[in-house]
């Protein structure tokens, strides 16, 4: 609970490092299946193509490296031919010749391996960098509705984990795939040249490995999927009970909670044990197949060498190839799964890239220079999900410099009015005008310059206090910042801090109190100096002195500025030029405090319930 509140509870998945030792069990962890594997794959390939030259080079180098690796056992075998067994001597020249070739091949492999390794490393990281950059830039163009309908955690996961997944998995997997396939083909070629019968023997491992992998993969995948599910449920129980521990104690629910935990824990135990058992069959059995083929090859090789005088070296060569053969096969099988999950991740990333952006500025969009701040709503109707209307035919005219307080029950539509004004959303029907120009005709960048906001969530970002105040006007001088802080009554407490204006602030409120953060937010709005102020009053915890400071600061801020306040404090409401009482999506009463009190309508009732007839 409380997951979606913007605040410290939201747990963000962070970019993690690739976990080591991912072979074995992890390989059969279920990825989500991609919906359109081919299309996604094509798109990823296209993105990789931006570094086409480097990738091409890397592929060629990998191929070369594989071919070299394939040759080595062959030459090792040849080296053994130099051993004349009957006489017990060695043809040293031949031996040295072959050994030299082997050494050169190793050296070449080293060089190629290093270069291609560096290329792939750089390209993978560049790819991730570019994808993240594009994602972030895209997010800037997305409408607010996108952010409101998704959990932060989900979006973060796409930018961090899913992008990581694409890069690391696909880069390594592709090179592994290429080198595996080439190794297989190369080995096959060499073996065929050497001896047909023995090759056939070695090839027997293919069907064995395939069957084994298939059987084990499907079983363990289903167990892993169940494990993940149970783990999710268990983690949910853990999180909510630890966060709500006080209530668990206050209501004496410890035993119930433990019972719930035990149930899920046992289920998790069962599924994870099965998953591990099944996936653990793979390596030993592969080993058996490996050694079986080895032995059979040895036997066959032995018989052939005796009957038909095949040199010892050939048999030795075959034996080393047979050891080599099963591994690439296994690797390819595992890759299939990881590529699948990377594709699924890629799809999630592309989903963001393909999302609908905020409507672009029309061609003849105007710029609003010197806005005065006159706001008009004409018959505005709006609903968030297009079914339940939130605003019904709202119309009003606010003069430049007027302070308007919006009051009403939770969910009546106060925040919506303000959101539409700032063009977070577009109304279903009706028009909104600033200085007599419809906001849809204005350039968005120009429209945004009209507003300063102080919201309930102060949203300071990590940086110094000076940076935070300067946020909306980067070109402000230090003096201007200090001046704004003085007007906002923030200067006094700032200079009393150990580092003054250079004190570091972070997004999570630790070193400053709520009230102090509010004052900084107000200073930020003061500096911004826009003609329209939007204020969503925080009812949060402030001590009386700070509260007075905030109120005075706000009054200074609101002077000569069109202000829209979503007000909670009676005192703020009473000070407004006009009060709009919003109920069920309509403005039902409007006027200043005295006139509304005299009307004895909804406003009157609200005030009375708060003050019990003691309002002045």
């Amino acid at each position, binding site marked *: *609970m409380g997951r979606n*509140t913007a605040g410290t509870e939201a747990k963000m998945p*962070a*970019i993690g490092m690739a976990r*080591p*030792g991912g072979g074995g069990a992890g390989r059969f962890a279920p990825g989500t299946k991609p919906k359109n594997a081919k299309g996604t794959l094509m798109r990823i390939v296209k993105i990789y193509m931006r570094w086409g030259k480097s990738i091409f080079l890397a592929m060629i180098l990998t191929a070369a490296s594989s071919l070299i690796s394939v040759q080595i056992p062959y030459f*090792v075998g040849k*080296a053994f031919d130099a*051993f004349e*067994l009957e006489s017990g001597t*060695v043809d040293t020249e031949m031996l040295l010749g072959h*050994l030299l070739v*082997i050494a050169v091949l*190793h050296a070449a*492999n*080293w060089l190629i391996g290093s270069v291609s390794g*560096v290329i792939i490393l750089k390209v993978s990281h*560049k790819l991730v960098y570019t994808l993240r950059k594009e994602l972030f830039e895209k997010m*800037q163009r997305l409408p*607010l509705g996108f952010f409101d309908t998704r959990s*932060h955690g989900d979006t*973060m996961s796409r930018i*961090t984990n899913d992008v990581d997944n694409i890069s690391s998995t696909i880069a390594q997997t592709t090179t592994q795939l290429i080198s595996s396939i080439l190794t297989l083909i190369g080995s096959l070629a060499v073996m065929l040249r050497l001896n047909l019968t023995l090759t056939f023997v070695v090839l027997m491992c293919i069907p064995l490995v395939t069957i084994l992998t298939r059987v084990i993969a499907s079983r363990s995948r289903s167990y892993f999927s169940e494990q993940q599910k149970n783990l999710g449920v268990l983690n949910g129980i*853990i999180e909510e*009970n*630890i*966060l709500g*521990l006080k209530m668990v*104690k*206050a*209501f004496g629910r*410890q035993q119930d*909670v433990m019972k719930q935990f035990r149930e899920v824990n046992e289920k998790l135990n069962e599924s994870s044990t099965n998953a*591990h058992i099944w996936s*653990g*069959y793979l390596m*030993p059995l592969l*080993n*058996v197949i490996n050694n079986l083929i*080895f032995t059979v090859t*040895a*036997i066959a090789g032995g*018989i052939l060498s005796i009957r038909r005088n095949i040199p010892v070296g050939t048999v030795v060569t075959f*034996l080393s190839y047979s050891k080599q053969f099963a591994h690439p096969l296994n690797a390819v099988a595992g890759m299939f799964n990881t590529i699948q999950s990377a594709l699924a991740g890629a799809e999630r990333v592309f989903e963001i890239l393909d999302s609908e952006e905020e409507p672009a500025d029309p061609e003849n969009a105007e710029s609003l220079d010197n806005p005065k701040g006159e706001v008009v709503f004409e018959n505005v109707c709006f609903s968030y999900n297009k079914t339940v209307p939130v605003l019904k035919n709202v119309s009003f005219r606010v003069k430049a410099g007027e302070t308007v307080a919006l009051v*009403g029950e*939770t969910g009546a539509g106060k925040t919506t009015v303000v959101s539409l004004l700032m063009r*977070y959303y577009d109304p279903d029907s009706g028009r909104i005008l600033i200085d007599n120009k419809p906001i849809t005709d204005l350039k968005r960048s120009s429209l*945004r310059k009209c507003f300063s906001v102080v*919201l309930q969530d102060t949203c300071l970002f*990590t940086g110094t206090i000076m940076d935070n105040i300067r946020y909306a006007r980067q070109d402000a001088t230090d003096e201007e910042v200090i001046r704004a802080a003085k007007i906002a009554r923030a200067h006094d407490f700032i200079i009393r801090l150990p580092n003054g204006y250079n004190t570091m602030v972070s997004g999570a409120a630790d070193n400053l*109190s709520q009230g102090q953060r509010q004052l900084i937010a107000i200073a930020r709005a003061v500096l911004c100096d826009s003609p329209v102020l*939007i204020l969503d009053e925080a009812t949060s915890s402030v001590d009386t002195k700070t509260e*007075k400071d905030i*109120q005075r600061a706000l009054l200074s801020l609101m002077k000569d500025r069109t202000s829209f306040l979503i007000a909670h404090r009676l*005192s703020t409401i009473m*000070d407004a030029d006009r009060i709009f009482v919003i109920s069920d999506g309509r403005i039902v009463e409007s006027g200043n405090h005295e006139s509304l009190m005299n009307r004895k309508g909804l406003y009157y009732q*609200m005030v009375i*319930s*708060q003050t019990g007839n003691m309002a*002045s």
Partner: protein
Amino acid sequence: MNLYYRYFRKYWLPFLAAIFCVTSEAVCDLLAPTLMSNIINMGIAEQQISQVYYWGVRMLLVTFLGACFAVARNILASKVSQRMGADLRYDLFEKIIYFSEQSVDKIESGSLITRMTNDTSQVIMFVNGIMRIFLKAPITCIGSIVLAGLLNFRLSLIIYGMVAIVAILIIISMKLSYPRYSVFQKAMDRVNTVVQEYLIGVRLVKAFGTCQQENEKFENANSNLMQSGIAAQMIITLISPVITLTVGFATVIVIYAGSRLFAMELASPGDITAFTVYMAQILTSLVMITNIFNVFVRTKASTARIREVFECEGDFAGNGVIKELNGRIEFENVTFAYPNGSGVPAIKDLSFCIESGQSLAIIGPTGSGKSTVAWLLLRFYDINSGKILIDGYDIRDLDVEHLRRNIAVAPQKPMLFSGSVAENIRWGNRNADDEMVREAAATAQADFVDRMKDGFDSFLGSGGVNISGGQKQRISIARALLKNSPILILDDATSALDSITEAKVRENIIGRKRKQTLIIITQRCSTAMFADRILVLNNGEKAGFGTHQQLLRDCEIYRDIYRTQMESSREAL
């Protein structure tokens, strides 16, 4: 390491059996090259097909045996490690559920959650690893070296040299990589923070129009991440091929040296082949051992964190007196400082008294100690001096569970749990029937539940219905109401409700048949005004106690609060 010892003791038999299997498996693996060399030496080289069969069959048997051990080891390892994991999780969670508040303050919830999830996974993974792979690598490595030595001592000298060089390379790469990885970690944290802050403050960004800035901020963090990532992985990318090269050259040297020895009849081709295989095995094991070190370091940190939780204090035990309570509350010179705080008392010498059935409002700015009063009443902590009495009984003498059964609280943050609305409300009284649940909801003005699609069966929680803050608060109040206890505490529990709804809830509660002692903790004067008595707290001290009228007259702080909240401030400018 006591942590592991506790669980190993429970499962020592299967654990040892698994270790036995791993060792046997490793031995079987190690025999393979020797048998292989025998096949070549005594079979193929000597043209003795019977020898080929002889050694071939042995090789198959050994492989088969090895596989049996491997499968047995796998089953044992999986069962034991996962079972241990489940036990560890259960014990750890149970420990936390029965934590004292002091312990919760010491280790924050966020950290507790991470310890329950990540750290236990880390430990389980390590135990699993020990039984599956970790032992095998050193055994294989040492075994290969020993066998190679037995096979042909002279040649094995080359292996020792190679192992030494590779080990040095691995150590160098680890030493160089670690600091780079921590730089990389910090860069990751930075990118996370930037994106997180953006998502939280997106409204601000759009309102202020600061897109360009945000782009630049992200660009900095992102490119930094890329560079540090490349730097971190560069070391291993460059050193890895060198290691392979070393092994390759060593192979060449072995073959050459082997040829000299062969000429002196001190080595056979079979030996040399076996050597190449041993070298490959040693290489793989060395790399595996490096991984083990990585995991071990991380696991050590996790183990320490888990042990810290187990060593924390538990809640007060329930073994006191049980008496029927009516709800008369008395604080006598109570002083209390949070055990893990700065030492400054949260409550100083506080004394007040309210009768059963009366209502008390506690008002004051943040940090004045209001919620602390509630936690002390619930005996989440013990006070430093003074007494808290309920109906004349010192709460320290009362049975803790009984005490808490007699107090219902609706906290500042609603803290609801996954389950239906009805299940959540039933936390107050698990034996309540539907009628009682409805009644509690109605008193708390939570009739919106009826208008929800599934009504009281609507599921709250991730994946369930999303309800607003005010709605959550009302369900939390209903939960407290259902308990029907002599004492009811509302800790700023109506902060998200508008004034009309709040007034209705207040009236409903006061109008109930059972006269509960009602404690309302609030910052709003408009809420406090209606209580029988108001306690004004400032910096943990009593600044005033009396009715609204009395305080307006006598208490300056209260007057201040009233004026700031209720009166126009234009004149004050």
